[in-house]
């Protein structure tokens, strides 16, 4: 497992300069407008797309075929991709939290809920996309990833619109957020990811890598 994660981190090191410059630009821009909403989303998007990039690299040279011929089992190979996803999205989320704390202070409670919603969105989207990658390959799975994100975002936006139309006061919504919205979201994302892992293992066991 350590070797596989190390391999992916070496691959990501190659993207370092490119993403570093984008990050620097977004950082300066976000500081100037004192809002980190867009940057948060961008960092988490990059976190999840990096996993796909490593899988695309692996696919191009049939790395998994080699890995299975080495003393690694298919569960370890699948698990390493989920772990990398948690590392990159977790890293992205960590940076976002730090930046929000540093530049906007603790009073921006609404942005925190938005942040949690974004992370959950990506957990769910990638939870669907990862088994699709193992089944159909990276290129097709990219569409699955974006379609899932659009679907989840549409359902969330629809929920807000319906609540608005039903005349639910904003204070009630805030109460809803405060009473476990964040934990609920992350639990949902975590559950989707866990189910996703078992589905991926099943796909790989049946189809091969």
């Amino acid at each position, binding site marked *: 497992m*350590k*070797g*596989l994660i*190390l*391999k992916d981190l*070496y*691959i990501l090191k*190659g993207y370092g300069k490119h993403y570093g410059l984008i990050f620097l630009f977004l950082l300066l821009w976000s500081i100037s407008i004192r809002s980190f909403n867009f940057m948060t989303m961008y960092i988490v998007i990059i976190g999840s797309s990096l996993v796909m990039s*490593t899988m695309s*690299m*692996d696919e*191009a*040279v*049939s*790395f998994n*075929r*080699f*890995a*299975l*011929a*080495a*003393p*690694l*089992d*298919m*569960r370890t190979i699948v698990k390493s991709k989920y772990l990398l996803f948690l590392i990159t999205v977790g890293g992205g989320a960590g940076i976002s939290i730090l930046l929000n704390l540093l530049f906007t202070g603790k009073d921006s409670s609404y942005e925190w809920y938005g942040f949690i919603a974004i992370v959950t969105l990506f957990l769910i989207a990638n939870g669907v996309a990862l088994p699709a990658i193992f089944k159909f390959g990276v290129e097709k799975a990219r569409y699955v990833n974006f379609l899932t994100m659009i679907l989840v975002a549409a359902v969330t936006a629809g929920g807000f619109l319906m609540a608005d139309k039903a005349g639910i006061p904003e204070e009630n919504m805030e109460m809803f957020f405060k009473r476990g919205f964040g934990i609920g979201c992350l639990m949902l994302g975590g559950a989707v990811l866990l189910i996703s892992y078992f589905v991926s293992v099943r796909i790989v*066991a049946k189809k*091969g*890598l």
Partner: protein
Amino acid sequence: MEHAIKVQNLYKQYDGFKLDNISFEIPTGTIVGFVGENGAGKSTTISSLLGLIPVDEGRIEVLGHEVKRDEKDGSWKEQVGVAFDECNFPTVLKVKDVQNIMKNIYHTWDQDKFMGYMKRFEIPLNKKIKELSKGMKMKLSIAVAMSHDSRLLILDEATSGLDPVVRNEILDLFREYIEDEQHTIFMSSHITSDIEKVADYIMLVHKGKLLFMENKDEMLYNYGIVRCTGEQAALLPGDIVIGKEETRFETSVLVKDINRVKESSFFEEAERISGSRPIVDRANIEDVLLYIVRSEKQM
């Protein structure tokens, strides 16, 4: 005799192809060349040996370990070095990255050995894989396969697409590897001349069936091509005829026991009915492969 690989009744079916009840044993301390045309079943056999694909039936034993797909303990693969027809490391990695990764995958990784190969092959550690030539990439793959405690090398077309100089260097390495008679190499290749240079045994697979596994020297000694007329060819004993090729001017027949032909009255009888004496040539591995494939196409 100890065996590095034992395969019994291996059966695997795909759409339009099946590996049909293959059985063979690879003696320890030998190099076995696995030949056959494209799509004959070489890669499927190798994938089955490594547990990369599920097999429908059969029993596979590698270094005394019964191979089962989806097994959690893959530690037996520490002793198996594998190189496929392409370098399987992501191209953005540097050579020194590969060393660090492998150190964390193989418990028996021998860093000094790997560095020794890199020096011998003049592969710079700081270069990215995409900057290496095809020959260097394959040398890197083979070096990785040999830099852990591998007692068996399984190579799937690992010398294909390389120039003769690089191939020769790699073949030298294989000869050194089996010197102690404890190491075994099972290699598939389209380049039959490579197989002829290093292999002790030849295994020929055709359309998913294992046609034979024979000692190379005996095979090259016994197999021959008889060039004659169609009428003369009919005089050859049917049980030794492997393949036949007919043109307007000549019939050439691949026989598996040329000495039996020489000792028989074939030449005298042939000369009597056609007035000319048939010619006999030695057959090489490529001839054997071509005659078998072509004969089947003519049928």
